[in-house]
Every structure is written in C-alpha cells, then in structure tokens.
C-alpha cells in the first residue's frame, strides 16, 4: 500500500506540473497510469468517477481525489489531491512573486498564453474524446454526449440541468 501511495504521489506531482490549462488536460495521462499501466480501476470506473466529480461543486481538479480514493482509499485521496495541487501551487506562488510582477513580464505572459492556448484546447478535446470513448459501442450514449456537447457549447443552460437529464436518461433505460 505504501508503494502504491508512493507511485500515486510521484505520478500526480508530475501531472501537476504538466497540467497546462488545468486538470482536465491531463485526464488521458491519468487514465494511462491508473487504468492501463497499474490496473487500479476499470475504464468504466474511471468515467464514473469523473462523472461524479462533475456532479459535485468545486474545482474540477478534485476528480483526482476520487481517483486516489478508488486506487488506495482515504490515504490515496489525500495523496493524489496534495500531489496534484502542491507543485503547481508552489510554482504559481513563486512565479507570481518573482517573475510575473516585473515590468515587461506582461509581454512574455501574452506570448506564453498564445503558445499554450492551442495546445490546451487540443488536450481538453482529447480528454472529452477519451471519456466519450468509454461508451463507443453504446449509440444512445454517444448521442447523449453529442447533444450535451452541442447544448453546452451553443447555449447558456446550466451544466447541472444537463447532468440531471443524463441521470434521468440513464435511469429511464435510454442510454
């Protein structure tokens, strides 16, 4: 168990520093580690836990707490959450104090933002496709994903309504 917690800590600390654009960008990498490499959960469980995190309030990053929970219980949840939050937070704290407040930093930030923006979009899309892929053989579920994407993209409907509709569609046996 200690070994497992160590792997979780190392993996998520690295992902913390790779998570350009936020935790959702690194979902495929979490999937690779938790499901493909270590087999600590199934693809189905991975998608379920992500769905649960979406249905809860708070920052999206807390999905890592659920992954930690599933992999190694309460200690796992604490380890993945701290590992995911601490490195990037320390970097932000010091970058903000030492670099970003300097005169001329704004120009560099603009360049870095412009450079990262397309990559972030690509990674977030990859995460969406990964999650949708869990239902690849279930045509009604794929239709449900497409409809939710279209509505959330094109309208200002609150995401909780869509999540509730998804739950109802599931219970009704549609997906």
């Amino acid at each position, binding site marked *: 168990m200690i070994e497992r917690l160590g792997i979780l800590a190392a993996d998520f600390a690295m992902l913390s520093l790779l998570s*350009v654009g936020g935790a959702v960008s690194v979902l*495929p*990498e979490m999937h*690779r580690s938790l499901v493909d490499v270590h087999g600590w959960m199934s693809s189905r469980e991975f*998608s379920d*836990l992500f*769905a*649960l*995190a*979406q249905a*809860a*309030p*708070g920052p*999206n990053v*807390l*999905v890592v707490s*659920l992954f930690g*929970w599933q992999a190694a219980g*309460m200690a796992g949840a604490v380890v993945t*959450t701290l590992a995911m*939050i601490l490195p*990037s*937070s320390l970097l*932000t*704290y010091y970058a903000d*104090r030492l670099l970003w407040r300097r005169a001329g930093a704004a120009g560099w930030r603009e*360049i*870095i*933002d*412009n*450079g*990262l*923006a397309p*990559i*972030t979009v690509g990674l*977030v*899309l990859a*995460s*969406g496709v*990964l*999650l*949708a892929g*869990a239902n690849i053989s279930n045509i009604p*579920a794929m239709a449900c*994903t497409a409809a*939710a*994407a*279209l*509505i*959330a*993209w094109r309208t200002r409907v*609150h*995401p909780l309504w*869509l*999540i509730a*509709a998804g739950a109802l*569609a599931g*219970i009704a*046996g549609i*997906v």
Partner: protein
Amino acid sequence: MSPEGARNVPRSPGELFYAFMKLGLQGFGGVLPVARHTLVDSYRWLSMDEFTDIVSRCQALPGPNIVNVSICIGARHFGARGALAACGGILAVPFVMVLMLGVLYSGYAQLPAVAAALRGVSAVAAGLIIATALRMAGSKRLRSWRAAFGIAAFAAVSVLRLPLALVLAVAVPLSIAAAWFGRKAAP
C-alpha cells in the same frame, strides 16, 4: 466594474478563506465565472482589469486555474498565509463532499439504477468537456495557423497515445516560439 475608490480589502485570512469557500461551492463545471462575480462585484477586492490580469498570469502556468488564482489573490494580501487560506477555502469543503460521493460510489455503484444513472451522467460529462474545448477553440488566440499545434497535440495524445510529457516537451517550446515569431511579424 467598481470605481477605484470603492474597493475593499480582505480583513483577515479567515475572511479570504470564507469568501473562497463560498465561491468554490457555487461553481459547477467551472468556478472562474463565479469567482469573478464574487471577488469583483460582491467583495470588490479587485477591479475587473486586475482580475483579468491575474487570470492571465495563472493561465501561463500549469495547475488548476482557479486554484492558481486563489494563490495569487491570497498572497497579495497576506503572503503565504493568505495563499494557504484562499486555496484551502476553495478546496476544503468540496474535497469532503467529493469523498462522500466516493464512499457512496463504493457502496452503491453495483445497484442497477445507480449504474444506469452514472452511465447517463458520464455520457453528459464527456459532452461537457467537449463543449469546453469547442468554446475555448473560439478564442482569438486560436485564429492563426498556430491552431495546428492544438490539432497536433490532440492527435498525439488521442490517436497516437504518446506520453503527455513527451508531447508537451516537443509541442510547448515549438508553439511558444511560433507565438513569439508571430508577435515579431506584427508589432
């Protein structure tokens, strides 16, 4: 947008903690809009311009954006203590709630009705993430040939299944260099 004179400051790390706790609990699928409303309009700790500036500082760094924003705003007022208070405020209660969901999941995921509901919610959750990507793709930062870096990153992760560290090690320097040259060409 509040005029300069009408601005407030947080009185203590405790007040920071409380404010960030409140806004964290209101955010579903994206806390940033709630943060703007709470910090700029309600508490008036920042002007809209300052808020936008802090968000852009944080976007250039890895990590969950809203957590980074809480670190910067907290640090501005009470240094490391403030950063800890704001970051703790936004995470503590949602962390406990998410764990309670985890406990319920472990206990009830086998029930057919729960499994069915989760199947529906996970289908929707995938759609919400795709919608986030589509919205971000509309940004003016992507109206350039450099959007190709996004397509390449997507293909590398999604189709080729390359390790993320490798993809970023190649794509990030190239994309930032391209952004730098793009800037030089259009002063």
